[in-house]
């Protein structure tokens, strides 16, 4: 019996082959960009759609390594700060609300009818469709963005927390009652600690949608922020700025996701991150 290296369901790629295979799609992506960019530049050396590496580097120097001539601040830092503030505010308020409603509706059947059917119904509304309404309601003001992120993420998290609480075996609750726990002990000392990692996992999974809502709301009504900048620069065909911004957003997203995962793994040893 010979174990194949690559093909078939019995394959066991070695460590070296594994590394190569992981790198392969990245290399393909970069290579195809470079080839495409080269072809376009040969045809028209002023093409701005797929700038060369040197042009991109110049763009990076302009937005990330030197101060803006008018504001005296580094552009990308300024935009990042504004965007993360909006996202942090919207997401954290959403997480707290999801926890409070999900936990209590899950534990107290009397609170269920007034909350869960409503939440389930509301969560079928496409948040993007609400954006124009919000922008009008807030007159394009600053609160429109975090509110939009909040509305887009809170209902899904609420439903998931509720379902997690519901899935805790009834036997476990009864068991702790027989150990002398009161009702509030059960809710806040037994159930709450068990759903905390799930809440953090929810926030981690909501990061993706939150980025979408952030960039969409900034594109449509803002005068600062990563999303605002991308759309502004793309209207000017400044792809040498847009591409570094997109890479930067991807990088922040990746770091945040990893940070959440590592934190949950470290803080909740008993909880196996899936």
């Amino acid at each position, binding site marked *: 019996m010979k174990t194949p290296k690559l093909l078939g369901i019995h394959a066991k790629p070695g460590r070296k082959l594994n590394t190569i295979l992981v790198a392969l799609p990245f290399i393909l992506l970069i290579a195809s960009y470079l080839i495409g960019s080269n072809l376009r530049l040969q045809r028209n050396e002023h093409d701005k759609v797929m700038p060369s590496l040197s042009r991109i580097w110049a763009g990076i120097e302009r937005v990330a390594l030197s101060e803006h001539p008018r504001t005296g601040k580094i552009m990308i830092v300024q935009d990042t700060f504004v965007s993360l503030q909006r996202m942090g505010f919207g997401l954290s308020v959403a997480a707290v609300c999801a926890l409070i409603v999900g936990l209590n509706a899950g534990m107290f059947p009397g609170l269920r009818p007034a909350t869960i059917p409503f939440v389930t119904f509301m969560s079928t509304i496409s948040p993007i469709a609400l954006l124009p309404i919000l922008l009008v309601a807030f007159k394009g003001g600053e609160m429109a963005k975090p509110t939009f992120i909040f509305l887009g993420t809170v209902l899904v998290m609420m439903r998931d927390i509720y379902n997690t609480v519901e899935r805790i075996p009834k036997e476990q609750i009864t068991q702790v009652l*027989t150990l*002398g*726990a009161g009702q509030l*002990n059960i809710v806040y000392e037994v159930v709450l600690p*068990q759903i905390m990692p799930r809440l953090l996992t929810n926030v981690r999974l909501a990061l993706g949608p939150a980025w979408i809502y952030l960039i969409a709301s900034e594109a449509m009504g803002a005068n600062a922020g990563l999303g605002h900048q991308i759309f502004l620069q793309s209207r000017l065909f400044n792809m040498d700025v847009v591409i570094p911004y997109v890479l930067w957003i991807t990088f922040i997203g990746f770091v945040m996701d990893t940070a959440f995962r590592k934190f949950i793994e470290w803080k909740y040893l*008993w909880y196996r991150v899936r």
Partner: protein
Amino acid sequence: MSREHSTSGHEYVLELEDVRKSYGSKIVLADIDLKVRRGEFCTVVGPSGCGKSTLLRLILGQEEATYGTFKVFGAPVRFADATRGIVYQKYGLLPNLTVFQNVMLGKKFSGSMLDRWRHRKTYADEVAYYLDRVCLSPDDYNKYPEDLSGGMQQRVAVAQALIKRAPMLLMDEPFGALDPGIRESMQVFILEVWEEYDLTIFFVTHDLPEAVFLGTRILGISQYYEDGGSNPVCGARIVCDHALPRSAQSTVVKETAAFGQLVQEIRYETFTPEHRQYVTEFNLKHPDSFQTLTNEERNGRQ
């Protein structure tokens, strides 16, 4: 203190009359009549799905009977509280607490925070004592339930329930997942604890020899009987009720002829679908046993 008072000085810890339990149109328990004396080690056997675990959940206050009088410690049954301990077959332990913390739970909700801090050494010793009694070594104290085998989890669950010293202990197939050696030592251990702390134990199992070995009283619950009405009947009843000799706490007794004969007898009365007794012919030998029958049932089979 008042709770202490209500759990003592009463001859019967359980008084059930005409108790029925149904889920929607499905009747699980039909007319259960039962009195259990303080200090009894009452084992419950029956075919799977007969409702023995349902009966246990009713006693525990996890569910409510559909009909009938249901008294625990002389008062109408209440929701689950510290007067009745429980060991489930699974799900007993909190997944986010270590073995040690799980057993400590029984101490966590009593007294003030200051009290708990003052007695932390005593409490820790007590936890260690019970964990030692169920054969867990200090190496396992900081493990999470998921890292333990089913048998070890079960032993932690027993320690967790015992440390609370509730006057009544309910057990739902607690040793079902244990391997034979540990199972036997747990059986002996539970008998020791029962005597030492003067507990009343209500023990559900599908293992007949285990039930006969442990109990001072054995109840067979079964849907295999006739009541002159529909066939098959709706819901299970107590079809046999024997007093058992106080066990010598030696597992050797399991090999004796009398033991085997009793096991066979209960198996025939409870577990054999072909053997259907009429309701008035049940083998209810136990002195505390009683039956409430309707006139139609009493007037015999047609």
